[in-house]
């Protein structure tokens, strides 16, 4: 989840130029310490797997592991394909046509990103599942006894497509807006048909955006735990979770490593398409001409119908179901005190994670923005470990680490916060580094030349100027940490109930009504940092 959101927000790709002074040893030491911390889970997992290498290899080659690999990649591929299939027409309609209300549609289309996958999946099941509202409606008058089962591949596919298609839509819309129409006009002018122009001129320019967005979707699907669990689809994350009951830690760790290997491949592919995308973007010559909007004419009705259907399933259905279950829940007994406790715990954990991630981000971002070099490059790269590591993998590694090594930290809040920092540090680093790059180094140099020490300059010059970025990073971390599920489930101290855990518990037991109020509270809680971020963007 972290990965996708960070990338979707277009966090910096590479700092160019600006080869700063040598890094002060203290800063470098702090950066290396952060790097060591975030690499710890992966490192310990490698130790666990490596210590019983042959057993791990046997597990990796087993039929079960291969089946799992096939199932997970099939789901990722299917969701990616359908997300692209939805996003291509949507983005074209919103950007290049006179579709009525296109501004509103393009905002509405991004909103599903706010709904955590497990809440989306739960609401989908409660609407269309075998015991959902639709089944209840059809049962009486039409005499239909059972709907085709939503559980399994189909349900996971639908839920994750609805949750992730904005990840493709967003870069695609940006790309479409930036396209220079002169190329298309030239092609049309030379007698090329509309379709041929699209195929030869437009499509190749869109490919990088589609590719990058699609790979983000794949990454999201591979790391997702909530939706696949609620849809009872055995992908890597769910099987790793249930394998904890297997008395076989080597096998479970091996599966986790296998998942990491798959996400690394996807990340590598994503990095490649991203570099290609930059080439395209820079290749655009001069000032772009104003794009002509395609007049839809009669076609605007089916176009509106299409947009309404997508929004209906991705947004109206979950929101409507949430409202329905909430009113039903409010009519009965709501366990307000336990929800309040859970909300307090969620806030506490997310706030601590945001603060800790912001603190850890400072040395990393300073090194990356001010002191380029091999060591700072290594620090920055390792701080992105959370991108490659699904939450369930970090959580599992820390359970092993806690039971064997850091016994005092096992089942403490500190361990949970640590996992959240590992997972979401990239968000804080990205935001802070971007704002540091906007602070001219000359101002710092002026401070130094007037006799201030490096710490004093940081405190009086750099920090006030980069504060916005630090805060934005912290808000982003808070936003993702507060709804995080697998690490919260595995690492929370005994009796430390959170909103995410509460929702997950009630919804996997099909107690839809009891999941409604906590879901609403969770969405409300995440609205606060979202509002801060939106205000900043304006």
């Amino acid at each position, binding site marked *: 989840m972290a990965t996708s959101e960070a990338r979707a927000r277009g966090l910096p790709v590479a700092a160019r130029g600006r080869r700063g002074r040598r890094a002060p040893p203290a800063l470098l030491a702090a950066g290396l310490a952060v790097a060591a911390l975030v690499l710890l889970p992966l490192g310990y997992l490698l130790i666990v797997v490596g210590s019983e290498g042959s057993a791990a290899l046997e597990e990796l080659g087993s039929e079960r592991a291969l089946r799992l690999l096939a199932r997970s990649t099939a789901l990722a591929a299917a969701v990616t394909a359908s997300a692209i299939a939805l996003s291509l027409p949507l983005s074209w309609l919103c950007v290049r046509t006179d579709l009525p209300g296109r501004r509103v549609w393009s905002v509405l289309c991004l909103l599903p990103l706010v709904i955590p996958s497990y809440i989306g999946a739960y609401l989908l099941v409660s609407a269309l599942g075998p015991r959902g509202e639709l089944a209840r409606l059809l049962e009486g008058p039409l005499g239909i006894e059972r709907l085709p089962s939503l559980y399994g591949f189909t349900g996971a596919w639908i839920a994750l497509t609805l949750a992730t298609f904005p990840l493709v839509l967003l870069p695609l819309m940006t790309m479409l807006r930036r396209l220079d129409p002169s190329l298309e006009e030239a092609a049309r002018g030379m007698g090329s048909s509309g379709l041929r122009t699209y195929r030869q001129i437009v499509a190749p320019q869109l490919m990088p955006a589609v590719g990058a967005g699609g790979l983000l979707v794949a990454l999201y699907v591979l790391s997702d735990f909530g939706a696949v669990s609620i849809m009872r689809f055995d992908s890597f994350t769910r099987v790793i979770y249930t394998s904890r*009951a297997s008395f076989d830690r080597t096998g479970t760790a091996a599966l986790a490593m296998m998942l990491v290997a798959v996400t690394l491949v996807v990340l590598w592919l994503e990095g490649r398409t991203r570099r290609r995308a930059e080439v395209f973007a820079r290749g655009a010559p001069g000032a772009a001409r104003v794009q002509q909007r395609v007049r839809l004419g009669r076609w605007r009705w089916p176009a509106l119908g299409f947009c309404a259907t997508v929004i209906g399933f991705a947004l109206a259905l979950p929101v409507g179901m949430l409202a329905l279950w909430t009113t039903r829940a409010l009519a009965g007994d709501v366990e307000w005190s336990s929800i309040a406790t859970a909300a307090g715990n969620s806030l506490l954990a997310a706030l601590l994670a945001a603060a800790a991630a912001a603190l850890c981000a400072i040395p990393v971002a300073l090194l990356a923005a001010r002191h380029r070099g091999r060591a700072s490059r290594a620090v920055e790269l390792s701080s992105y470990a959370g991108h490659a590591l699904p939450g369930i993998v970090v959580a599992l590694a820390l359970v092993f680490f806690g039971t064997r090594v850091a016994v005092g930290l096992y089942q403490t809040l500190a361990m949970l916060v640590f996992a959240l920092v590992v997972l979401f540090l990239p968000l804080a680093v990205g935001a802070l580094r971007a704002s540091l790059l906007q602070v001219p180094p000359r101002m710092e140099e002026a401070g130094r030349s007037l006799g201030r020490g490096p710490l004093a300059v940081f405190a009086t010059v750099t920090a006030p100027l980069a504060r916005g970025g630090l805060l934005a990073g912290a808000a982003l971390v808070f936003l993702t940490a507060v709804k995080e599920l697998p690490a919260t489930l595995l690492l929370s101290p005994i009796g430390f109930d959170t909103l995410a855990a509460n929702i997950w518990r009630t919804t996997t037991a099909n107690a839809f009504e009891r999941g409604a109020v906590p879901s609403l509270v969770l969405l409300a809680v995440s609205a606060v940092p979202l509002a801060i971020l939106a205000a900043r963007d304006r």
Partner: protein
Amino acid sequence: MYRKLSLAFAVGALMLAGCGDDDDAGSDSASATADTGTGALTVYSGRDEELVAPLIERYERETGNEVEVRYGDTAELASTIVEEGDNSPADVFFGQDAGALGALQNENRLIELDSELLDSVPAAFRSAEGNWVGTSARARIIAYDTRKVQQADLPESILDLTDEEWKGRVGWAPTNGSFQSFITALRLTEGDDDAKAFVEGLKDNDAEVYDGNTAIRDAISNGEVEIGLINHYYVAAARDEEGDDYPVGIHQPAGDIGSLVNIAGAGVLASSDQQNAATEFVRYLLSENAQKYFADETFEYPVSADVPADDSLTPLADIDQPDVDLSKIDDLQGTVKLLQDAGVL
């Protein structure tokens, strides 16, 4: 706005720093605590929170002792205890079947209990080696939708549920401890191959997977599935609440492994630093108060203190089940492996 937030984050950071320090110090002090019985007792409960939380609260009220409970699936918690080894924070394991308790005993995770404690339950309901004791008994049943399934059509054996006739009509919970214990028993009576064939057969027969017994029972009453493999008391409790119109019936096929009587039970961890207090907790579970709770509130069969079971239940002695030694169904690891190989876990 920014200033306030910055302040909040700063406070958060300080708290975090505080946590870190505490925990560093905590690692040593935890293992050094003597068995004073004054600290909170940590119970790992494979039994549902809904079923046992009221009882544990009662224990806390009556004794003034504090109990922290970690709830989870029985096998998951047993596996966690093995993984945690000597560092396990658990003092008591309260499981929903004999298999997980047996597995922990085999891994030397449980101490031998006082013979007086063991002797308070019938020999069939305690470990032959003395490391765990049953706290209540329960029967596996075939629950069915009385609106859709006629009594005459009910299977004579649970193994018949893999027949084409039952395709898509059965609900089960492969992650559930009681179910896994039943599979371990099935492996003993029929052999591994037949047990695996049964599991694969259910899967191929499109049996619906649920999270646990309550979910299966509700799926039957909602008409989602017609047959469910669960424990007796889920139906008994619902019937008590909903009245005789409750549409879920109990079928206990005669002489069949599908009618297995198992126990929920407890053991004291060898790694616990509060073994005396933990033993007292187990003793409480066998006390008249707790046994009455199991009889009246959860509709299980009491196993000690001469507390009678609820009248609505088939008397324990009348359940016709094959002869299975509960002390021998301890290969939980093997069962989990079998379920994994069959592709259901």
